[in-house]
């Protein structure tokens, strides 16, 4: 009998992984700080879109199993990245909070591929209102003790609230696109970002702005003290090989110096991608 879509995606080989750079924009340069791993479901199916895929997964209450499947796919894809490239991986808070064994599996899969634990930042996402906070805190403490950093995803929306900021003590606030896009023309959005930057500073976290929509938004973010940004106008999510072709990341065995040089997005490529995005072309999404 044909497998259900859930059975299909529980096989990591049916998933594909794209990486979207998070840039540090500073003093006129744009350097790749880290890469967020983004999962795509089975090709040529409606579930190739991540939003549809994960809505289905949450309906099936299969977050923990699918998070594990995604993690394995990501570790496999990360083998092709330089050994010092930082990696962001999404995980549901419920996966960490329900004794799912995720931390052990994470450790095993990373070790199997010689991926240093210290390279990883776990981005905690949550859509369900309830989560076992003590168990979540234990998992986070265990991950932290191994060198993993923690980010709180979609800050400002849903379950990424003040409580999660305190309970997860994230190293990064990833501020949701809703508050970022268009902030150049919206003083209320700027006020929200300003308050989040102040809060992050007070809690010892850094702010990552998700999806600024224009150069004006980027300028405003810099004025507000936000240097870390992730957006399609900077670079869309794409497979490792494409990032390497663009010179945004090096090969797995590249020396640190080579990789550091390559992390600055070539201006011409940036302009090309920017023009394509402005023309409404979808690039590797």
């Amino acid at each position, binding site marked *: 009998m044909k497998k259900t879509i859930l059975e299909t995606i529980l096989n990591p080989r049916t998933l594909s992984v794209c990486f979207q750079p998070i840039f540090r924009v500073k003093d006129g340069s744009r350097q790749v700080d880290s890469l967020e791993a983004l999962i795509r479901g089975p090709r040529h199916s*409606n579930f190739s879109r991540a939003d549809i895929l994960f809505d*289905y997964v949450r309906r099936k209450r299969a977050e923990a199993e699918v998070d594990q499947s995604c993690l394995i796919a990501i570790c496999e894809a990360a083998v092709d990245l330089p050994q010092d490239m930082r990696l962001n991986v999404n995980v549901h808070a419920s996966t960490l909070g329900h004794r799912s064994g995720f931390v052990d599996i994470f450790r095993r899969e990373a070790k199997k591929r010689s991926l240093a634990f210290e390279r990883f930042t776990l981005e905690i996402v949550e859509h369900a209102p309830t989560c076992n906070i003590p168990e979540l805190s234990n998992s986070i403490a265990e991950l932290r003790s191994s060198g993993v950093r923690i980010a709180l995803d979609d800050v400002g929306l849903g379950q990424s609230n003040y409580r999660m900021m305190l309970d997860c003590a994230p190293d990064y606030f990833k501020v949701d696109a809703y508050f970022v896009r268009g902030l150049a023309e919206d003083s209320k959005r700027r006020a929200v970002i300003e308050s989040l930057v102040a809060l992050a500073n007070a809690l010892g976290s850094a702010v990552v702005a998700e999806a600024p929509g224009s150069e004006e938004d980027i300028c405003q973010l810099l004025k507000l003290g936000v240097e870390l940004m992730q957006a399609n106008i900077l670079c869309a999510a794409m497979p490792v090989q494409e990032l390497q072709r663009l010179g945004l990341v090096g090969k797995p065995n590249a020396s640190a110096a080579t990789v550091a040089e390559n992390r600055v997005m070539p201006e011409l490529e940036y302009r090309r991608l920017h023009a394509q995005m402005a023309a409404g072309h979808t690039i590797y999404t």
Partner: protein
Amino acid sequence: MRAPYVGMADRVLIIDDDEQLVEAYRDYLSDAGYQVDCAQELEEAQTLLDYFTYSVVVTDLRLSKLEFGGLEVIKHIREHSLPTRIIVLTAYGWPELKAEASSSGADTFLRKPTRLKELGAAVGLLMGAEA
């Protein structure tokens, strides 16, 4: 069997856990010019209904582990006020069940096993097209 081509790209969702039947329905309706998606279980169907607009949904009343999963599909469509017509397939002959599905918002009933031509005609009728 080939269906008469209706020359339009209306979207149809077929929901049934019988893979062979689904494939037969899909091939027939695709040949007729419809854009066809398939789902084997309730959650898969609900997710697709949240993202895509379907002109017609064809659902079995019984979906794998759910005896009357088709009723849940109807409820989902009507609760979300989706502009979707519903064809219910069922092997059951119970009038009570038919009445419940009908009051929930099903537009057409077809008795299983359903002939492809009969299904095509029912879909075409609900689309307002000639089948």
